[in-house]
């Protein structure tokens, strides 16, 4: 049924499916987007620090986007 106005707040397992759908046809690395989204939520609830998150994806982000301007960059982090 076409009900654009009745989305759900989805529990996380189903959220993954929705997130994947959002990244369908994206011009960038879909898998990277999914992994980063998952870990960004871990950062939010304290399972991972900003620093860990930044370092974990820094190279991939640089490779994919040619830059990494995420605000999670730790003090003194070596950009290169």
């Amino acid at each position: 049924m076409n009900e654009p106005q009745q989305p759900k707040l989805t529990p996380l397992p189903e959220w993954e499916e929705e997130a994947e759908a959002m990244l369908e046809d994206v011009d960038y690395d879909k898998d990277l987007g999914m992994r980063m989204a998952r870990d960004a939520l871990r950062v939010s609830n304290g399972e991972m620090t900003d620093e860990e998150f930044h370092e974990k994806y820094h190279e991939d982000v640089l490779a994919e986007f040619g830059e990494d301007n995420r605000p999670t960059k730790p003090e003194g982090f070596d950009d290169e």
Partner: protein
Amino acid sequence: MTDYGMVIDQERCIGCHACAVTCKQENNVPMGQYWNRILTEGGEHLDTPEGGYPEPGESSSLDMAFQPTACQHCSNAPCVKVCPVNATYTRDDGIVEIDYDKCIGCRYCMAACPYNARVFNWGEPEHRPESGTGDIESRPRGTVEKCTFCTHRVEEGLDPACVVNCPADARIFGDFDDETSTVSEYVNDYDTHQLLDDLGTDPNTYYVKGEMTPGRPQKGEKMESEYDLDREDTTGTSAETTNTTGTETSAEPANTTGTSTGTETTNTTETESAPAANTSATDAAGANTSNSLADPVPHVPTVDGGTS
């Protein structure tokens, strides 16, 4: 510091969609997208309850509520963390915003938002009417967009459009860093919750369920803090100058001509009429008439009118 946020009283919300539509109008949101949607908490469809219809002679156990849902403006926003180009960011005043010039359309932020609050401009944004609506320019194709708490209004001292236009007074906007603000009071005094609060995102949007709040009766479009300032500006005479119904409000009507030429009046909003910082008490009283004068005490509705 300032930490803007919103309280939405679901006991007051009647699910009428006025906030959804006015958001779309004010922010020039393209067809096919809504930044602010009214979810039904109940059945599978809009405006349907959960539970079974009571059998004859039985009392009801059906249940339904409405949950207006837009960007939650998380203090700990996962969308901000994943943006490789820092296009989505948290302002110093707590509002999560998107820099549309920087946005490259990778949609990682959409994937990372557990509230499904963001929309993507797949094609050239289409507007009805074509030339667009509201008080802000359209965003370009290929960008992600979402609720901004109407920053373009907030920076002019005006409440977000959804707050101004709620006929149930169910939406309250304000500063959580100001402990006297209505939003702070309601979060302290009422049973509020944040959506998906176990995720640690710490939204700046709180929902009231349980006891109904007085909401914030909207008598104008100015932010609550503006009224507080009005009061400060008129020290000693606030009782006379800050409020009431009647003649003051009408002293400067929105339209002064009424002739059939149809062109006419300019906006008489606060921004144009009040370089107010050093205004004297008398002047401030005059300036106040330039717009409707809300009850500066938001949770005490003005109910005793002069009419009888």
